[in-house]
């Protein structure tokens, strides 16, 4: 019967020399990978989300049943009347947009 050490050496030698040459294998793997995701700049996604949120907020305020809408809110805030319904709505929406900006900035994906 074959010596155990010899078998060990045979196996290890075979393992060490049995590596298969590439022969286009890497290229075939790379072709099977999912398409590359578009290299989005770091600021584009948050900017798009923020822009959409801001636009939606303005529309919501304009259409909301708040007396005076956007104009009234701007006037109230300018006069430091922060507790009027219009001013509170505007401040609330601004806070929501700011919070979403923070979350987006913190999320690398």
């Amino acid at each position, binding site marked *: *019967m*074959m*010596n*155990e050490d*010899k*078998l*060990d*050496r*045979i*196996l*290890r*030698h*075979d*393992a*060490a*020399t*049995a*590596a*298969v*040459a*590439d022969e286009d*294998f*890497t290229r*075939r*793997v*790379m072709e*099977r*990978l*999912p398409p*590359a*995701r578009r*290299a989005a700049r770091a600021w584009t996604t948050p900017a798009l989300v923020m822009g959409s949120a801001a636009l939606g907020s303005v529309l919501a305020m304009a259409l909301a049943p708040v007396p005076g809408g956007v104009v009234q809110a701007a006037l109230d805030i300018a006069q430091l009347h922060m507790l009027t319904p219009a001013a509170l709505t505007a401040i609330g929406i601004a806070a929501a947009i700011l919070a979403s900006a923070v979350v987006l900035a913190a999320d690398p994906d």
Partner: protein
Amino acid sequence: MEDRSLQELDRPAPREAEGALPGPSDAELILAVVERDDRRAYALLVGRHQGQVRSVLRRLTKGDAALADDLAQDTFVLAWRNLKRFRFESRFSTWLYRIAFNAWQSEARRKRELPLDDDIREDSAAGACEMPDIVGRVDLERAIATLSEGERAAVAACYYADLSHEEAAAALGMPLGTVKTHVLRAKAKLRARLAPRKDEA
């Protein structure tokens, strides 16, 4: 001739050691892939590890190179998809082998619905004695092909993938004791099957 082959066996194997590779390390390449979707970095990783992964899979598939390459491709594509989950707790190659073994096990189960621990290869083992007397690697390949699936997997993991018994157990999803038993049985069978031809030579 015998002296020459023994000298070759004693020579240090030209196996690529992960830490001693030229160029960026595996960890650097993985970070480039994860952070920048860098395909060139992944191509380097594939090129670096494909030889060993395909070699292990060829042993597992009893020399079926086409099936082994299909499984190896699946392995690398799956690794790409899951690279973000690689936690650097083990060597990248160990993680790759785990995926490769899973792919092979799924394929084996799909084909024959045989559990990995089954030791029902004695019929093919008997057939091995009638094989033509071809020396060297072919002999070894055929001898390995006659092992049970569990034994073959254990040998492939511990020798061809160069995993420790513990790593092999984790990669194969077997208890450590089972891996050790499979390796012992496999070696006993290989010694018996290779002995007549090798010793006669």
